[in-house]
């Protein structure tokens, strides 16, 4: 556990704070919805309410991460956001298809939801059309996915932020700023098992020290793809949830923890880690936790 020499930005979206020195604000937890098949809003609502309740109990902010795979799901999912999400609740949209990205941005604008939107994500695959859409319908906050196809090390991740590794005209940070996105989170791009996976965790303190921006990742993706865990089926959920503590332990600010149905185990696990960090940072660095920190809520 440590403290960064560089001043750390604390970004706020709809009353949720992300970032800062370790031990001040609790880890923000992104729980994913609608990964597979037709979006099932009824089940989603149940899981969503459960996650928001866990957030209230532990103090770890929850961000529903809406995975939108097809253009025809845009209307249904944004209606769900409008209808079900509390009006002050931020959310993220997790889209890979460039065409769907264009449609969802327009729809979020039409429904006046951009001020609560975390755009997940900007990466080297950004198209000209996406840039135009983002400039026109600018979300309040965006995640930059620091995946560098040329270099998977922490340095490679910084390179893609700095100059796009010569795959984009300018670095991803400059692209985001030029588009008018003022609040930027960095996702250190967890890779497939065995493919320099540790770099996603190791990059967290490196990037925070370099830029002072809130940083995290989806380390869950590695667990999900770890085939050897099939031989330890009963441990899979525990391993999955506990993998997220690596993020806070290395000074990170948010975890994209995978399916929302894992919230029951992820929230207390990460809250426990946050408490441990807070105890240490307060004793050693004199850093007090925020009023909503799990250490305040649960002790």
């Amino acid at each position: 556990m440590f403290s960064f020499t560089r001043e750390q930005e604390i970004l706020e979206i709809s009353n949720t704070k992300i970032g800062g020195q370790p031990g001040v604000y609790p880890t923000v937890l992104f729980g994913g919805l609608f990964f597979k098949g037709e979006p099932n809003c009824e089940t989603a609502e149940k899981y969503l309410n459960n996650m928001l309740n866990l957030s209230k109990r532990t103090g770890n902010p929850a961000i529903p991460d809406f995975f939108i795979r097809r253009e025809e799901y845009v209307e249904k999912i944004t209606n769900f956001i409008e209808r079900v999400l509390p009006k002050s609740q931020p959310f993220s949209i997790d889209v890979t298809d460039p065409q769907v990205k264009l449609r969802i941005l327009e729809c979020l604008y039409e429904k006046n939801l951009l001020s609560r939107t975390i755009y997940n994500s900007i990466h080297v695959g950004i198209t000209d059309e996406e840039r135009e859409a983002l400039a026109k319908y600018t979300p309040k906050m965006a995640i930059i996915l620091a995946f560098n196809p040329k270099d998977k090390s922490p340095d490679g991740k910084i390179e893609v932020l700095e100059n796009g590794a010569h795959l984009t005209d300018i670095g991803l940070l400059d692209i985001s700023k030029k588009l008018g996105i003022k609040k930027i989170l960095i996702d250190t791009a967890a890779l497939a098992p065995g493919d320099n996976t540790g770099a996603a965790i190791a990059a967290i303190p490196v990037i925070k020290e370099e830029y002072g921006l809130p940083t995290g990742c989806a380390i869950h993706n590695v667990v999900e793809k770890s085939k050897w865990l099939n031989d330890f089926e009963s441990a899979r959920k525990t391993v999955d949830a506990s993998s997220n503590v690596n993020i806070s332990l290395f000074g990170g600010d948010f975890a994209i923890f995978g399916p929302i149905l894992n919230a029951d185990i992820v929230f207390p696990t990460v809250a426990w880690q946050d408490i441990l960090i807070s105890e240490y940072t307060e004793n050693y660095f004199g850093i007090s936790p925020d009023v909503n920190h799990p250490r305040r809520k649960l002790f």
Partner: protein
Amino acid sequence: MNINIKTCVIGSYPVLTDTMELMYGYFNGEEISWDKYIQCAVSDMVNAGLDIVSDGQTRDPFIQIFTRKLTGCRIRARTEIVDKVEYNAPITIKDQKYVRNLIPNDKGLTGVITGPYTLSKSCIDLYYKDEKDLAFDFAHALKQEAKVLQKHVDMISIDEPFFSNEIPDYGKELIEIITKDIYCPTRLHACGNVSNVIPELLEIPVDIFSHEFKASPQIFDVFKEYVFPQKICLGSVRSDNTRVESVEEIMEHTKKGMEIFGEKIVQLAPDCGQRLLPRDVAFQKLKNLVKVGEKING
């Protein structure tokens, strides 16, 4: 006159990277492969009819190809030197092996090494505080690469664009470190106007000198003042200009070169790497270059 001129490239070739495809690879947890971009460049070179091809240097700009893999280098907006520069593992060999399997048996393959002086001048030194020490460590590291590379290519070309500005008094020694005991032919490519450094250039122990005679024709006049044993790779189409030179224009240029250098001209090439040209333009320039080569060789 015994004429046997080979058409070739300097190194880089345009690449249009499908970044979204790379991202889908990431999202699906697949291993990222650069093979299709190498194949694309090589197939253009082969289809244009070149005698000697390269891997196209599609992975990275010519500095980062090496600094990405050498110990002591850290890539930021520019490469930073943060520790002693050392050879860690083969840098370009995997791609050269791949290219060798792609090309017909009658095609030659050139390996390209970015020169130690150019690397040292292109990096931000946070460790050595002495440009010469840095350049020598680059040279020793690149020597390791050259020793492996020679087993897989027909020629090694050392790319030293910074030599066109100045050749330091240790410039010869730097290149000598790399070329000593290398059994395949070696070429030194220095683009730009090298008129002011030709005496120093001619001291450098390589087999072939490669320069941009098309964009800087004044170097013809300076070169003809000297007698030297090395051969010439004649830069014959511009790499900084999208105008495609006609066969007639390239022929005229080549004949001028032959009048001055005679049998010393062993290669016709673009002036420099073609990375910054549109792909169709680069291809057409190579095609016209090949036509001239064929006419001259009869």
